[in-house]
């Protein structure tokens, strides 16, 4: 049984790590972009950011003072049991969010949308969000916290099959152009694209594609992977860099996730995970051991299954084709 005290303590550490330590995969991607960037202003910005990540780690202070809206992703192994059950788990995650807001410190960004009530702890109605997924086997629980900004860089549109790939490219460019100017999207960013599902799932998939896949990771479907690379290149050919200055570093990577959708539609969402791509992950094992990492490994073959039941052999065949 997974001890809840360990879950709470781990969640607190994750809040701290997410706010302060830039994940290695994003850092490597940004360094590559900084080397390639030849716009004076854009280049200055990227080097200032690299310096900022170092300062954050050295001083143990938040890399960006807009510490976003902290949220949680929980993946549970099928054999995992939690001391106190899911209710205790949610209390631990809400508690860690509140304590870390004071402890790191984070900015208490979460307020009521109408009355602007602020509990000063990033906890309130439907906040922090907690999303769940499951995995066959395993007595562990994976906790991922993401502190994504919440104002700019995201949009949704109902496209139709007739709009085709050229329609997808246009809406993608529209989002980058609209939010890239003056750098509102805080680019260069990891761009997540959700395709399909219903409106809600389309948005969820796009956000998870941006926040829960690492730089360099490709969709296992080869044609989707190809489109990811094509969209990344397209974004970097706008002529726009960091802060919307002339340059070529707009997209550090592009990830696409698909969900089966209504036969008449092709809904699309676009999300930008910013220069402070804050995510931190830990696995808590049944015996209380904790392992920290930065790759959420959220989109497993099981998550992307197409069959009624779980048929790993059939899936591995399909995904290797």
């Amino acid at each position: 049984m997974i001890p809840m005290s360990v879950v709470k303590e781990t969640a607190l550490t994750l809040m701290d790590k997410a706010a302060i330590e830039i994940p290695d995969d994003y850092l490597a991607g940004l360094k590559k972009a900084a080397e390639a960037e030849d716009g004076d202003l854009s280049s200055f910005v990227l080097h200032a950011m690299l310096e900022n990540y170092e300062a954050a780690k050295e001083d143990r202070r938040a890399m960006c003072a807009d510490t976003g809206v902290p949220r949680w992703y929980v993946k549970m192994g099928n054999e995992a049991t939690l001391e106190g059950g899911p209710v205790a788990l949610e209390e631990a995650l809400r508690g860690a969010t509140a304590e870390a807001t004071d402890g790191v410190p984070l900015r208490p960004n979460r307020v009521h949308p109408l009355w602007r009530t602020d509990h000063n702890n990033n906890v309130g109605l439907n906040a922090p969000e907690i999303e769940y997924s499951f995995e066959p086997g395993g007595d562990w629980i994976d906790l991922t916290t993401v502190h994504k900004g919440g104002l700019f860089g995201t949009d949704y549109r109902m496209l139709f099959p007739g709009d085709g790939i050229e329609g997808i490219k246009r809406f993608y460019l529209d989002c980058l152009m609209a939010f890239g100017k003056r750098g509102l999207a805080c680019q260069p960013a990891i761009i997540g694209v959700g395709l399909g599902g219903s409106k809600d799932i389309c948005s969820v998939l796009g956000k998870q594609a941006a926040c829960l896949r690492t730089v360099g990771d490709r969709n296992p479907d080869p044609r989707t992977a190809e489109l990811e690379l094509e969209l990344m290149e397209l974004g970097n050919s706008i002529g726009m860099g960091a802060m919307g200055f002339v340059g070529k570093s707009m997209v550090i990577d592009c990830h696409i996730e698909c969900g089966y959708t209504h036969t008449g539609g092709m809904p699309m969402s676009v999300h930008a995970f910013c220069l402070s791509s804050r995510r931190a992950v830990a696995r808590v094992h049944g015996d209380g051991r904790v392992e920290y990492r930065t790759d959420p490994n959220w989109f497993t073959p099981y998550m992307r299954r197409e069959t009624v039941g779980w048929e790993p052999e059939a899936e591995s065949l399909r995904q290797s084709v």
Partner: protein
Amino acid sequence: MGTGSGKLKTVSLNLPVTTEDLKDIEIGTVVYLNGVVYTAREGVYKKVIQDGEQLPAHLHEISNANFHCSPAATRHADGTYTIGAMTGTASFRFSKWLEDWFRISKAKIIMGKGGMSSKDYKKYFVPNGAICLTTVGYGTGALLGRGIKGIRDVHWYDELGVAQAMWMVEVENFGPFIADSDLEGNSLFERENAKIREGVDKLYEGTKEPALHRYGETGDRGDEVI
């Protein structure tokens, strides 16, 4: 001081500043600040401009640099504060308050994320001999955090909360910022947008207009969007 500013002109200013101090700042100049800066955004603007509450006495003699920002801060049990990091928030949203704000606060520098429009600069900044700086990145929060030497005062903390309170912060080598405007009201972002605009038609070549349009793409609500 920030490395990597190699090719860009860099200036250090002592607060409060005079308009004379700002005359050598060009758009695209890298700026560092010393002295006291204060945060003020919609919460403070509403209080002072709409509700007519008084600003702290002699504010402009202490500081005339208004940061559109909320700190990542904690108030301790003994009443002291810690600020970990500071990062600007998008300035364009505050345009409607600026005319009154300049009159009441006598601010000469506005800092935030992403600057404002040259229309706002010419209308509100130029007559007041003021300029607008943008934060860099965005989110050089840790670098700005390092420039903080102390908290001089916090106003309206209980009513407005951490994010909206007016923080008066003592700073040294606080930056980097980039000048988006100069005393003539030019905008760096608009200059860059114009350069990028040149390539846009080619960029969109071959992409396809969506079958279903949206309001916003037409301003006439009498139109159909199909």
